[in-house]
């Protein structure tokens, strides 16, 4: 990574302080998507934004160990697979793909659909957050041929 970490104390402290707040708010946006504007994509993008903020302010050496690019790529695959698995679970109970009304989360069909929506929103959020982080990391990757130049 070519971009050097900011040495400015104010930037570092503010980023460290703001990032968790963004993440909490992202979770709120994600899980409150049933009742207010929000949902998987919005929440996922905000989580990605908080991670990218940390990467910009603290540099890769400090933040890569938390979520490495390889982990982020796999997280994106996992999020998409969660969506696929919830949809495919309906096959097991005789429904069509993505028919959450057939999956016995609860007795009431409308509640089952509500739970199904929540589950796939979580998958979407995971996929979005991880994919955007991975894209950011890859875009900043130095053009080296095989040699490692980690951090600043």
């Amino acid at each position, binding site marked *: 990574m070519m971009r050097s970490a900011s040495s400015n104390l104010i930037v570092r402290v503010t980023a460290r302080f703001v990032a968790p707040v963004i993440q909490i708010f992202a979770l709120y946006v994600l899980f409150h*998507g*049933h*009742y*207010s*504007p*929000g*949902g*998987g*994509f919005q929440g996922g993008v905000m989580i990605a934004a908080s991670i990218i903020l940390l990467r910009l302010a603290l540099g890769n050496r400090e933040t*890569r*160990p938390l979520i*490495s*690019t*390889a*982990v982020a*790529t796999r997280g*994106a*695959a996992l*999020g*998409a697979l969660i*969506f*696929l698995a919830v*949809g495919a679970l309906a096959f097991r109970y005789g429904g069509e*793909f*993505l028919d*959450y009304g057939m999956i016995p989360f609860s007795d*009431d*069909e*409308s*509640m089952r*659909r*509500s739970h*199904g*929506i929540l589950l*796939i*929103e979580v*998958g*979407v959020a995971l*996929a*979005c957050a*991880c*994919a*955007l982080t*991975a*894209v950011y990391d*890859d*875009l900043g*990757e*130095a*053009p*080296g*041929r*095989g040699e490692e130049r*980690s951090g600043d």
Partner: protein
Amino acid sequence: MIRMPRRIRIPLALLGILCCCTALLFAIAAEPDYGDPHAPAHREVSPGGHVTPGIYYTRNALAEAHTPNMVTVTLADYRSFDTFGETTVVFCGCVCVMLLLRRRRPERSDDS
């Protein structure tokens, strides 16, 4: 690769844009009034005899999915396959960027 000189390229682009924009403006001028709640896209039943999806979602989202936010229900239940496609697009973009840019590593890959 074809290389168009500037004095041909710019007028050609402007001509294309002019055609598109004029066609669009004509189409818009023939639209019903902007914001009409009874425009064809918002009516109850189409001339074909089927219910119009947008109104169906408005009426039934709360009852059928126990969720007041109709956009969420539309996105994640009625048209969830679109959203699945969209998640695939996000994942696909991630793998595409990885294919284009990620550094080649020795056989034992390690990212830290």
